[in-house]
């Protein structure tokens, strides 16, 4: 079954852009939440990760703060 992947990001953050292009490159489908505009998503991100820095990736409940290629690849099994 495909993994459920959520990305919490802002429109200006360079590490968010790197993360998103990395996922796109690997043909990984994800839902992006712009926490600068979506306050509910921001609260969700804070609750899940216990912090406020972007990006945050949620891979089937596994939370990864920042653009950590290694951790994300591991969680995705790629």
């Amino acid at each position, binding site marked *: 079954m495909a993994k459920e992947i959520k990305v919490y990001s*802002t*429109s*200006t*953050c*360079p*590490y*968010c*852009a*790197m993360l998103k292009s990395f996922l796109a490159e690997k043909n990984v489908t994800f839902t992006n939440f*712009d*926490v*600068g*505009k979506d*306050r509910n998503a*921001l609260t969700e991100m*804070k609750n899940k990760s*216990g*912090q*406020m*820095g*972007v990006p945050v990736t949620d891979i089937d409940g596994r939370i990864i*703060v*920042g*653009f*950590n*290629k*290694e*951790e994300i690849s591991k969680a995705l099994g790629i």
Partner: protein
Amino acid sequence: MYDLIIIGAGPAGITASIYAARKKMNMLVITKDIGGQTNWTASIQNYTGYRLVTGEELVKRFSEQLEQFNVPVKENESVVSVQKSGDVIKVKTDKGEYESISLVVASGRTHRKLGVKGEDEHIGKGVAYCATCDAPVFAGADVAVVGGGNSAVDAALQLAKIAKKVYVIDMARDFIADPLLVDQLKANNNAEIYHDAKVTEILGAQFVSGIKIEQEGRGYEFGVEGIFVEIGSVPSIDFAPAEMKSRRNEIMVNCKSETAIEGIFGAGDVTDVPAKQIIVACGEGAKAALSAYAYVLRKRK
């Protein structure tokens, strides 16, 4: 055993990697991230060949150029110590240990911290060092910006557009930022500016809830959710042996990029080379790689 290890993958480290890869050196790059400080730079107008380029775009171009050589890059890895015993340079990181004949230190610089109570435990929990990255998270909130240079005023400007209120806390009597930027900031009526002021404490439980400052002997406390610290940068060289460092805690290099330790070279903003510019860092990275290459050839004879 590698021919060359490069610490850092900003403009200096990436350029060094490209030069070394073209020399077909057996090499490894160890870095916290790709791009370093360039990532935080909104617009670059003095990199030859580009009239205007964003930091993000330039980093993308740099890393695409590096990727074609399939150089092994250890990302999200921090170097803990560097030691030379005999002819072998040992690099210890938070994840492993590596050995090499030569080393290029291009670890760059990182944000200077305030060093006040409440700062460390709130990093990423309201305390931020990159407005480009994190400013939008504080839309509609009250925030503080600490600093008086271009990056501080620029951060305050970005925040003034989206936050409810922005307290700007500057240690100096006047901003050292470009007057043009300062005028733009003063035109925002949600920006409240405090000069000759210093931060004494950051308040909050899990997340930041306020900031304490002192101005002319008087204490103030503001309720804020975000605090952007923009007070310059410090070299990232905690791992480097003391004999390599200058009094300003930078890596001393000569015109051949050599440091005090034979076989270890330095490049970019981490060194005492005066102009902290992307294009200078690239040039220095190229030089360091060529010097390392020549050194390795000599050692192999």
